[in-house]
């Protein structure tokens, strides 16, 4: 099957331009796309196939097809709560990242220049390059009872009751916001640098106050950055499982952890596959909606 798909890919360019040039292009792209086929496209196909099976086809089991796995939500209504938790995590994380990240991007674009801007930019990108898992682990040392936050609280208010945020919904949100905030700052920054002094001056000379300038000038001009940042954050967050597990403990049951369980604990691969594809369909819907939103904006301008 792999060869068939690969051959078809190789054939496509050579149809367009028969002769040596076509083969040259095919030789350049075939290794990369052959690899992607083996590592991504065929696995996704295999998982789609598994999602219609009653049981994983290992050993000498005969194949039995079923649509049951896709009705898991009907059979197990608690999955609606789990899905809602995931969506809530996605929405809250995205909203908080936008609320913190947009002003930071505007400040970076308008209040810094030259060398100091380069350094600040690098400092915002740098946390990306530390292991995401380790950053989440560090939050457990900050948020736990007797942790850094608790210690600081007791320095300020000596007699305070000990505070622990660990294993709670807010803890998951804090960890996720920390993990994804740089995305929002970067995408908003790319839009924010396009704002010119003249735009702000014009608004100001027409009598607009700061909130009005933000609402009528800054927000519309940074909207493309906000939207792409929101997608870059929302999509991985609804698929997250390591952050909710480590920071949420028992509270952290999300679609991600349920799917992980199907593959690692329960070994119900067909159900896990169906849940994964349901999530994938949701993600694709979001991409479709957002690309329409983005192209609509571009068309309007």
């Amino acid at each position: 099957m792999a060869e068939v798909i690969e051959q078809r890919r190789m054939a496509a360019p050579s149809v367009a331009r028969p002769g040596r040039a076509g083969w040259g292009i095919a030789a350049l792209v075939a290794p990369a796309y052959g690899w992607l086929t083996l590592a991504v496209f065929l696995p996704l196909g295999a998982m789609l196939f598994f999602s219609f099976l009653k049981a994983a086809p290992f050993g000498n089991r005969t194949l039995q097809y079923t649509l049951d796995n896709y009705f898991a939500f009907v059979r197990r209504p608690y999955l609606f709560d789990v899905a809602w938790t995931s969506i809530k995590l996605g929405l809250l994380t995205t909203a908080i990242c936008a609320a913190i990240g947009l002003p930071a991007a505007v400040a970076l674009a308008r209040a810094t220049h030259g060398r100091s801007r380069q350094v600040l930019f690098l400092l915002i990108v740098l946390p990306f390059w530390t292991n995401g898992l380790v950053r989440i682990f560090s939050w457990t040392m900050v948020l736990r009872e007797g942790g850094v936050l608790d210690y600081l609280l007791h320095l300020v208010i000596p007699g305070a009751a000990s505070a622990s945020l660990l294993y709670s919904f807010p803890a998951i949100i804090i960890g996720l916001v920390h993990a994804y905030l740089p995305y929002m700052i970067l995408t908003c920054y790319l839009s924010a640098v396009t704002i010119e002094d003249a735009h702000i001056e014009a608004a100001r000379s027409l009598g607009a106050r700061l909130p009005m300038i933000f609402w009528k000038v800054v927000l519309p001009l940074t909207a493309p950055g906000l939207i792409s940042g929101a997608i870059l954050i929302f999509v991985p967050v609804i698929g997250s499982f390591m952050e909710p597990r480590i920071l949420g403990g028992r509270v952290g049951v999300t679609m991600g952890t349920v799917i992980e369980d199907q593959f690692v604990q329960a070994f119900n691969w067909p159900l896990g596959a169906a849940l994964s594809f349901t999530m994938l369909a949701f993600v694709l819907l979001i991409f479709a909606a957002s690309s329409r939103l983005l192209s609509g904006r571009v068309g309007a301008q």
Partner: protein
Amino acid sequence: MIVLGRSYLLAVLAFLYLPIGVMVAMAFNASALYTLPIDPSLHWFAVLAENGPLLAATRNSLLIACATSAAATLLGTLAALALERRQFRGRSLLRILLLPPIAIPWLITGTAMLVFFFWTGIGRGIHAMIIGHVALALPYVVLVVGTGLKSLRADLEEAAMSLGSTPIHAFFAVTLPLLLPSVIAAALFAFAISLDQFVVSYFLSTPGVSTLPVEIYSSIRKGFTPEINAISTIFLGVSTVLVLIFAQLSHLGGKVDRR
């Protein structure tokens, strides 16, 4: 306004660096229960040197990252040359096909790889992780090298060819030396993606064969293992150096383009 903006930026940076600072501080803190105030010690670095599984996982991580970087850079550069320099039907489709590895949540890609590799007998382990990591890094390599190619003028190559050199000779004599900063930047990027990758490695690891992030994950779930802070601190130092090299190289790429 400017002062307000800058202090706000500093506050955001403080938030971003809080856990990283805590990690480094705890690496040098003798307390096994992460208690404050800090009792300075190198104890955990010594304990780390004794932790066989963690060190084996680190070796695996480095091995996989090197293999991923080499394979992804080679394949990605070839593909970028075709996508950036040639006109052919299906080019936009090939561009779109680069998106799934980036855009689909790793949980889905990772479990799909597990299903397929297990089913077909490719199995799990280091080779499976390399297959997966290369696929995740490839699109980024194509992107980085493609951007570098865009800023290189194609007529240099054409000039070499009109002076009688073969396309392959023109590539090695003209294009590749000018493109080298982008290629190295892409290789570093691929290395970093692989080293940081947790989700896909997690599903493709076996009890005996894991990577550093996977080993860290299982240690966290087991309980207190302060060695994690020690090894993460070492890695933080290494990746900071890599980022600085990367930034310098992309800067160099920019210079070439202005010339």
